[in-house]
């Protein structure tokens, strides 16, 4: 009595497993664009933060425009560092 019922549920679970594997593959394909976005924002955010810090320090110490220039480049360096780290993390994931 219980055997066909049991078989049905097992079939259902096996089918959903196959479906999930196919879905995982699809997600991997889509994640390339996500990765590209991730690296872009990582770079831009650090530059923006560096520039803002420079701007704030400039208005504190009244040294316009030197600190904003210095911190812009420091922010760019931090952004490149972030991108390298994110890329390393991606390689580790694969």
């Amino acid at each position, binding site marked *: 009595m219980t055997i066909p019922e049991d078989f049905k*549920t097992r079939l259902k679970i096996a089918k*959903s497993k196959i479906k999930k594997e196919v879905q995982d593959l699809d*997600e991997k394909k*889509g*994640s390339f*664009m*996500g990765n590209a*976005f*991730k690296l872009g*924002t*990582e770079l*831009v*955010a*650090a530059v*923006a*933060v*560096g520039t803002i*810090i420079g701007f704030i320090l400039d208005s504190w110490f009244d040294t316009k425009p030197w600190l904003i220039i210095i*911190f812009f480049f*420091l*922010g760019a*360096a*931090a*952004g490149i*560092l*972030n991108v390298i780290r994110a890329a390393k*993390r991606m390689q580790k994931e694969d």
Partner: protein
Amino acid sequence: MASNPMQQFTVHKIGPEIKIAGIDLSFTNASLFMVISASVILLFLFLGSKEKKIIPNKIQLIAEMFYTFVAKMISDTAGSKAKPYFPFIFSLFMFVLFCNMVGMLPYSFTVTSHIIVTLIMALFIFIAVTIIGFLKHGFKYLSIFVPSGVPAVLLPLITVIEIISYLSRPVSLSVRLFANMMAGHTMLKVFGGFVVSLGVLGGWLPLSFSVALTGLEILVAFLQAYVFAILTCIYLNDALNLHH
């Protein structure tokens, strides 16, 4: 119909104006869709955990899949020490995911397409992670700004760069989610506008693009929730396990 593709992002009040100590706390459409997302999550998890069967039905299967997905993500990226933070990361992931997904429904409002919402979430994570780091390691936590094996001459420069890199975390976390959601929804609206203006003869091409973009947007909605949660795990990992 609205032809301005940015009009979908306007926040307007629902019901009476509430002002407490000079701060506008009125109920808006953004608050409404946050409440809707939260209630959908609660309903979904309630139904998923109502009948605890050994052989799960569909909704229980999905709920369990979400649970194992987040649990695996935390143990993979932040290790066993991050176990106590599971409830927080699970709620964060579910909230971002459902806000994104509810936003995909026609006539709805995407809460996560507003920088203020994502920035507050990111700042909360950033401050919480910093506090956790200081609680766990004391002032030794500051050593994440000083990488090992750097010549003494370069140390001040590297430390400043590291501090900027640390401070840029909430910005990149929030801007990524906000920009993805806003760009996607604007694009959908623009293609929708093309369908209307090109009419029956030429409207089929943008319509097919619109359909494809909707699929892409659902993928992006999931992906961004995943990225948001996994980056929280990575930041938590930095705070829990120094010099990893």
